[in-house]
């Protein structure tokens, strides 16, 4: 499944997204918040890369940078061979339709004053596609694909439940036949019984339309279910990446291990022996020296405080790629 780094649809190299932290009377930049700090990853054709991390790790900023809602500070975003990280807004426009995004809260991301028909027609208007009749036909097709009745086009977002709104968000994202869809916590706001319906829809669309996904979530169980490969993010950096089963079954990074061990499983029989992390995630404005995880790591050595470990390949059982940013072989 996993395409090589070189023939990938999306290849990100050394991506950094920093935000200025302003303070004082004149609101001058005092320091920087390193939301995304030197991230490299790749996604192949029709492949899903799951991006997992806890709040504030930079996963959503990374997603927004990839669709260029945020301009990267440094690094390359090679999409289909073009570095979209450096293009101007005007140059970017033809590429925009190729990468779309689905947001966590479908109530916030749909304009409450527009009908569903208007919302779904807008991408076609912006990109000058078809006349009015053709656009209505396309809107009807989209509603059908995501499992909503054609009559939905006349109605407003508040008339729909959370799951249905997320279907509308998905319809909007696939309207222009994109190659890559960034799914930012697409099911986190939904109930369990609705969550599985939306996950199935995303998997079904991937198969029918050959979509690639970057699936961003904090729930490792959901991510593992939909992803071919996963990347674990902590304080703006990728700590571990590899095939979904490989990373889950043979996690090499102490953070990945803690994350897996913390998931409450719907299996009775008391709590398992669990590795509980001490303390809280440090601030990305003032990250620790060396390894970002050293302040909470049960295996930390003096070396971890001095030297930042780079992602390095480890030998995977299945011969798949598997990389970890840790000095030690655990």
């Amino acid at each position, binding site marked *: 499944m996993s395409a090589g780094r070189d023939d990938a649809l999306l290849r990100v190299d050394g991506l950094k997204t920093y935000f200025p932290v302003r303070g004082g009377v004149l609101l001058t930049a005092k320091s920087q918040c390193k939301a995304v700090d030197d991230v490299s990853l790749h996604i192949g054709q029709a492949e899903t890369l799951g991006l997992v991390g*806890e*709040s504030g790790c930079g996963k959503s900023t990374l997603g927004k940078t990839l669709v260029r809602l945020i301009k990267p500070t440094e690094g390359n975003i090679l999409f289909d061979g073009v570095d979209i990280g450096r293009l101007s807004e005007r140059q970017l426009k033809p590429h925009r339709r190729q990468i779309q995004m689905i947001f966590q809260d479908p109530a916030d991301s749909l304009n409450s004053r527009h009908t569903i028909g208007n919302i779904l027609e807008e991408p076609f208007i912006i990109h000058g596609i078809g006349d009015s009749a053709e656009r209505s036909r396309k809107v009807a097709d989209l509603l059908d694909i995501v499992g909503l009745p054609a009559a939905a086009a006349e109605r407003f977002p508040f008339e729909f*439940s*959370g*799951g*249905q709104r997320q279907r509308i968000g998905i319809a909007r994202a696939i309207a222009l036949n994109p190659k890559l869809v960034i799914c930012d916590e697409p099911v986190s706001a939904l*109930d*369990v*019984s*609705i*969550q*599985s*319906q939306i*996950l*199935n829809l995303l*998997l*079904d669309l991937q198969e029918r339309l050959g979509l690639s996904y970057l699936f961003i979530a*904090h*729930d*490792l*169980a*959901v991510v*593992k*279910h*939909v992803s071919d490969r996963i990347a674990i993010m902590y304080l703006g950096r990728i700590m571990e990446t590899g095939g*979904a*089963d490989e990373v*889950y079954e043979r996690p090499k990074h102490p953070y990945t291990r*803690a*994350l*897996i*061990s*913390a*998931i*409450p*499983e*719907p*299996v*009775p*029989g*008391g*709590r398992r022996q*669990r590795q*509980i*992390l001490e303390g*809280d*995630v440090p601030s990305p404005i003032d990250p620790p020296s060396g390894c970002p995880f050293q302040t909470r790591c049960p295996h930390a050595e003096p070396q971890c405080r001095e030297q930042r470990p780079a992602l390095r390949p480890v030998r995977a059982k299945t011969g798949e790629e598997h990389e970890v940013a840790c000095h030690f072989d655990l």
Partner: protein
Amino acid sequence: MSAADPTPLLSVKDLVVEFSTRYGPVRAVDNVSFDIYPNETVGIVGESGCGKTVTGLTLLRLIPSPPGRIVQGSITFQGKDLTRLSEKQMQALRGAEISMIFQEPMTALNPVFTVGNQMIDILRRHKGLTRSQARQEAIAMLDRVGIPVPKKRIDEYPHQLSGGMRQRVMIAMALSCDPKLLVADEPTTALDVTTQAQVMEQIVKLQDEFDMSMILVTHDLGVVAESCDRAIVMYCGSIIETAAIGDLFERPRHPYTKGLLQSIPRIREEKLAQLPIIPGMVPDLLHLPDGCRFADRCSRVTDECRRAKPPLETDPLTGRGVACYHPVP
């Protein structure tokens, strides 16, 4: 645990809670009965709008009234019917005998007072301590819930604490007067998994130390499986199944419970092409069907299900109950 002790600490009978809305009354809790025994942890599980939170709030008489109203039923706690107490009597009980912790500690804590101020208030009110005694007690409590440097943290404001710390402060406040019953409403839902694991571990440990019963209101079946002795599953305001944890997860009897358990992606299992789903969605509480509320989504539905709502039939020996005409064998 439960069956061994014959006298329940809390006994809820035929509870009905309604909210008046522009479109007519909405029955958020519909004829709910259950018992909580000493030292027991019971999970109330269900999806948004099933009435689990309103049930929890009603136990402390915290539903806003109007629009909310207890239409019928009794809540017997240590021999007293809480539905008949005056507001003043309830105030004496809340925080002292029954405590509650909420999902979002930032909104539950007062942002303009320090942690210490808020804790000292409770201790002085319920335990009649002096300010300095209360402060010592508050510091000791913060230490017990695992807050590092409690002497310093006590003078901080809620915004200076992380999410996990704030939830610990909430727990310290809730437990400071040694309650008999803790109602925890989604206590870890707003937290990250690693923090959730820390906080749940702490709650379970403290429950043991404080010798209290706990009602854990949550949508997360994983949290329930790991922390509860028994669970109550709610759907559209009614209890549809209740069972000991092992039974519920290994042999769910209500088709809804079964569907819910199947639709969770399990991390241990292989990637499936499609997850099993429950089709459709929860009916609107304003337009509930006549019969079983799950009928339109159920694979085992018959005409009987649409005629009358199935009652919760409880086996007196095992305490296991299911509200279904055609339960899963």
